[in-house]
């Protein structure tokens, strides 16, 4: 059963479709790059990474131009043991399904669903949900599809395991002249490749790691499309950053870039709106739907597509005639709706050449520290005597943590430090003790931006933030984060918090992430999950005692 080609390869392919990678193996890097084309990285702790081969991953790879033979060859080339037969069969069969169904147009522009063989068409037509979306049978292998059903049909087909390739093309949109500025600055090669690959293959998603310049890929796509563009982003801060970046890097002027938010509702040839606006309801109805048809958009860009709110999928189903570009660092969604991204935005169109990006040094590693703090006896008794619901708050806001935060801030004096908390009074207390500004959900947008700007400038060295800081904002020079309290250490949250410290740093300082944990309290339960998730993300993890803190780190 030992693979003859590479009897000691770095991969172990298991019958449950997970693939383990031995990181220390000399061929590990090559194997990882080839594998990431069709398998999703699930966990990446220090020595063994776990990938999973999913149907969607295989179809995404197929859509990006890889064949099943390529994929199996990768597995065979690097596998330590023989590939389980179920996996071989599964990969071949699954990949073989892609392309058997095609959505296209005839000469008169009528939408058609065509199958390579009639049996497939017969099989899918047996499903009630799919049958309801097929209009009339034109020939043995072809059904007519109505324009409104294009997105829904792709969704339903994917659900029953028959992804349809959408070759029906797009409306050009109203042309709008623009280009990238040529002032000694240009797209990196892989960014160019991403843009070209996207345009060649239609709609879809470009996956690039944090800090690899997704915004610029968006700008590059706009410069190729030269058409009216709608950009959907996660929040207003992010909207401003997009705007700034576009003004800085392209020929677009302030007159041409509009912001559609709670405050201003400018519809311009290039309009930036938040998902929140789009999904806002008034009297039970979406209040800003008109935006989607306000201009003849030739391109719709979805930023952070893994965070796209579910109602936007529904709206996107009706936008299938417009070219769509999704940008993200990961295809994995917390809600498991990766399939809808695939059907409605489009499949993955570009694989980041991770090796190249890493070699360029864009990703700086962070070290994680868990600091265990002994509660003084009085607090310990109070904690013991409290009911469960009060215990979490008592542990999270233990005054003993304040002193540790001060020591950590002193230790990293001169660096850009974020202090993250969950409770407003704790945040106020921290701000007071550290003599630092606090930023919470109630901070007005203008003030928030001013604080971020001053933090970016280095004028402000320490910033105390609540959960608002969790989403897509750039805090480039933060090299230290101290989490004093936080809600339940969920995986996504942790990754995001740390993602902040991953942004490129000009100073070259290593990043440090501290979490403060009250020993023998419920705090430690959450810490256990945190340790697991962070280590799985590949960060180093060290547990320290608060009294030996200065000596240890």
């Amino acid at each position: 059963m030992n693979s003859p080609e590479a009897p000691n390869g770095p991969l172990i392919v298991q019958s449950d479709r997970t693939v383990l990678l031995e990181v220390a193996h000399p061929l590990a890097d090559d194997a990882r790059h080839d594998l990431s084309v069709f398998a999703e990285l699930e966990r990446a702790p220090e020595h063994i990474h776990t990938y999973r081969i999913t149907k969607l991953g295989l179809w995404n790879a197929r859509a990006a131009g890889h064949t099943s033979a390529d994929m199996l060859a990768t597995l065979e080339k690097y596998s330590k043991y023989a590939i389980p037969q179920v996996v071989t069969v599964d990969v071949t069969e699954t990949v073989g399904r892609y392309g058997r169904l095609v959505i296209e147009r005839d000469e008169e522009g009528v939408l058609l669903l065509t199958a390579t063989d009639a049996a497939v068409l017969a099989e899918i037509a047996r499903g009630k949900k799919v049958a309801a979306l097929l209009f009339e049978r034109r020939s043995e292998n072809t059904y007519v599809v109505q324009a409104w059903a294009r997105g829904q049909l792709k969704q339903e087909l994917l659900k029953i395991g028959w992804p349809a390739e959408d070759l029906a093309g797009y409306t050009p949109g109203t042309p709008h002249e623009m280009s990238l500025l040529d002032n000694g600055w240009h797209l990196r090669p892989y960014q160019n490749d991403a843009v070209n690959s996207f345009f060649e293959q239609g709609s879809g998603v470009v996956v690039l790691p944090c800090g690899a310049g997704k915004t610029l890929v968006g700008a590059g796509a706009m410069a190729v499309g030269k058409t009216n563009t709608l950009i959907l982003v996660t929040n207003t801060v992010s909207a401003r950053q997009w705007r700034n970046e576009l003004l800085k890097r392209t020929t677009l002027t302030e007159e041409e870039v509009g912001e559609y938010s709670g405050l201003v509702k400018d519809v311009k040839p290039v309009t930036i709106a938040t998902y929140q606006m789009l999904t806002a309801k008034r009297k039970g109805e979406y209040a800003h739907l008109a935006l989607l048809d306000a201009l003849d958009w030739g391109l719709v860009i979805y930023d952070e597509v893994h965070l796209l709110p579910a109602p936007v999928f529904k709206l996107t189903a009706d936008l299938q005639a417009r070219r769509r570009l999704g940008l993200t660092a990961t295809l994995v969604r917390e809600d498991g709706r990766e399939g809808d991204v695939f059907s409605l935005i489009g499949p993955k169109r570009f694989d980041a050449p991770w090796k190249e990006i890493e070699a360029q040094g864009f990703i700086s590693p962070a070290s994680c520290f868990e600091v265990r703090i002994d509660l003084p006896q009085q607090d310990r008794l109070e904690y013991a005597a409290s009911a469960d619901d009060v215990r979490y708050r008592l542990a999270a806001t233990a005054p003993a943590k304040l002193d540790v935060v001060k020591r950590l801030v002193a230790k990293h004096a001169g660096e850009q430090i974020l202090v993250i908390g969950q409770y407003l009074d704790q945040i106020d207390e921290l701000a007071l003790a550290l003599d630092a500004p606090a930023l919470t959900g109630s901070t007005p947008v203008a003030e928030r931006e001013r604080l971020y700007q001053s933090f970016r400038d280095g004028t402000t060295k320490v910033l105390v933030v609540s959960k608002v800081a969790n989403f897509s904002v750039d805090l480039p020079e933060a090299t230290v984060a101290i989490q004093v309290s936080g809600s339940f250490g969920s995986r996504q949250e942790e990754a995001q918090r740390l993602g902040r410290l991953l942004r490129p740093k000009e100073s070259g300082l290593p990043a440090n992430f501290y979490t403060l944990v009250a020993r023998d309290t419920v705090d430690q339960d959450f810490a256990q999950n945190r340790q697991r998730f962070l280590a799985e993300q590949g960060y180093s993890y060290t547990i320290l005692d608060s009294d030996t803190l200065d000596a240890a780190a």
Partner: protein
Amino acid sequence: MPTSSTSTLALAGRLRALGDTELGGLLRARSVRDAGIGDFFDLAEKLLDRVSIHAALTRLDRPTLTMLAVLAERGEEPATDGAATASEISTRLAQLGVPADEPTASRQLETLAHLALAGETDGGWRTWDTVIDELRDWPSQGLPTLDELAAPWHPQHHVEIDADQGTTNALAAERAFATTMAVAEIVTEQQNEPARELAKGGLALPDVKRLALAAGVEVDDVHALQRIAVRAGLLEHDSGQWTVTADAGPWLLQSTAEVWGRLAGAWLDELPSDIRTLLAGRTHDRWDEEFESLVAWLYPAGGQWMRDRVGARVHDAELLGIIANATPSAPGSLLLDEGADAASRTMATLLPHEVEQVYLQHDLSIVSPGPLAPRLDARLRTIATVESHALASSYRVSPASVNRALAVGETAESITEFLSSISLTGIPQPLAYLIAESAARYGLVRVGRTPTGSYVRSGIENLLGAMLVDQGLSALSLTREGRGELRSRYDEATVFWTLSEARYPVAAEDADGTIVPLARRRTAAAAQPPAPDPVLAIVERLRHSTPDAPQDNDRAWLERQLDAAVKARLTITVTVTVQDGSSVDYVLEPTGLGGGRLRGRDRKADVERTLPLSRITAVSSEV
């Protein structure tokens, strides 16, 4: 030719004479479950019922059926008394062209007797009327006649192997590996907690789910794995639940190939010898269809019951990698040709090679990059919990798993030493921290038993103080018992687990203050008394269907026999003690039983006789 009621009378007499073990064996073999059996006559009637006979014949192999058909043929000959002597039987078999040696023939007759399908009397062997009726009807049901039964087997399928042997072996090795791992997990899980067997047969659903989870397989696959484990003697059935046999533990520490050898060997041992002989000669053909048609031939009345059994057997062969893609694998061929040891050696070369070192990671997980040598796996399991048992197994260390290891005598040093010895990359800091912290704190709080409940003691007063005010512990009603000690009226296990869950560094100790491991709390379901064995219940009932004293027992039995004879108007021989103490036999056609007397017509003397029951010492029928 005796009537069916005569059969009932005679069979009831035979049944009564059986010991409890034989009787139980018969009830099981004939699947008698009905609770409506009051005495031996009821049982005899049940066993002579056509439906029951029909069912019994489905499970007989061809040679035994041939033997039975010879007896039936003899029973139908009016010229004889229906009995056949051993020499008559062998003459007839020889006539039919059936090769039958003496030991085989007597073994077959024994089988028939154990199933109460035939019996030996003074005149030789004979079978019952209902059996004769049943066999007479066989041709009309499309089943063979005696001549057809005696005909030899003609192989029908000769399909040469066209599959690539390499592919077959790879698939077989993959299956063999997965099945052996899963069986090991299932057995290990039942070592921790036995699985319940339902009275109607089959595992209890909650246990099936538990085992499926432990082995990482689908719920539907558990039955086959359990079957394989039971066949290999790794599990035994004991008062309603499955427990692990004594030698299962050492077996599981052997290499995967060796464990596989035992599982495959047990599969082979259970094959009927003739199938084995036939298959052994055809080890390089496709034999799925061959196997099925051969079994259909061998068990001509087998029907669905046999098809299910064969299906299960073939399925097991696939699971074990004895066959793959319907052709025997290299180890499968060797198994049939040369036995389990040779097969196991070949399988060892096909299985993924074992590793002796693992990766310890920051997230406290441990991954073995290949199958971990079983002895290392067993030790690692005392320190870490298995998360997935597969080609590359993963384990996770937690405070609970380290405490468990400390409780069974490991120390921080011994754990660290073991982990260092198997780690490819040293011990990550968070793991070292966890081990050191757990060991340093372990046993700071001790729980032990008192006559009225339990005590909690600790040298750290602050800990005890916190426990006293701890809301989560209020259910334990802890009270202070002087310095350094608390008391609870609950037992030490309850107190131990509650403190442990509330994160106090607790250990249980015995009267000498030595730390003892506390077993995990058993689920309520496991504590239920096992369901009574229905077969034993029937045997019990049969034994009590007549009064206890042997004297009364015999008397009641006599009356029951007479009663049956009267109802069926059977001619019987009655032995009566006359006044001088000697015995006289009367052949009577009984007409009535009452007032302590038996009335009947004596055919020989042509008179009506009335005999006092107290004088009757024996009754016999013609059979």
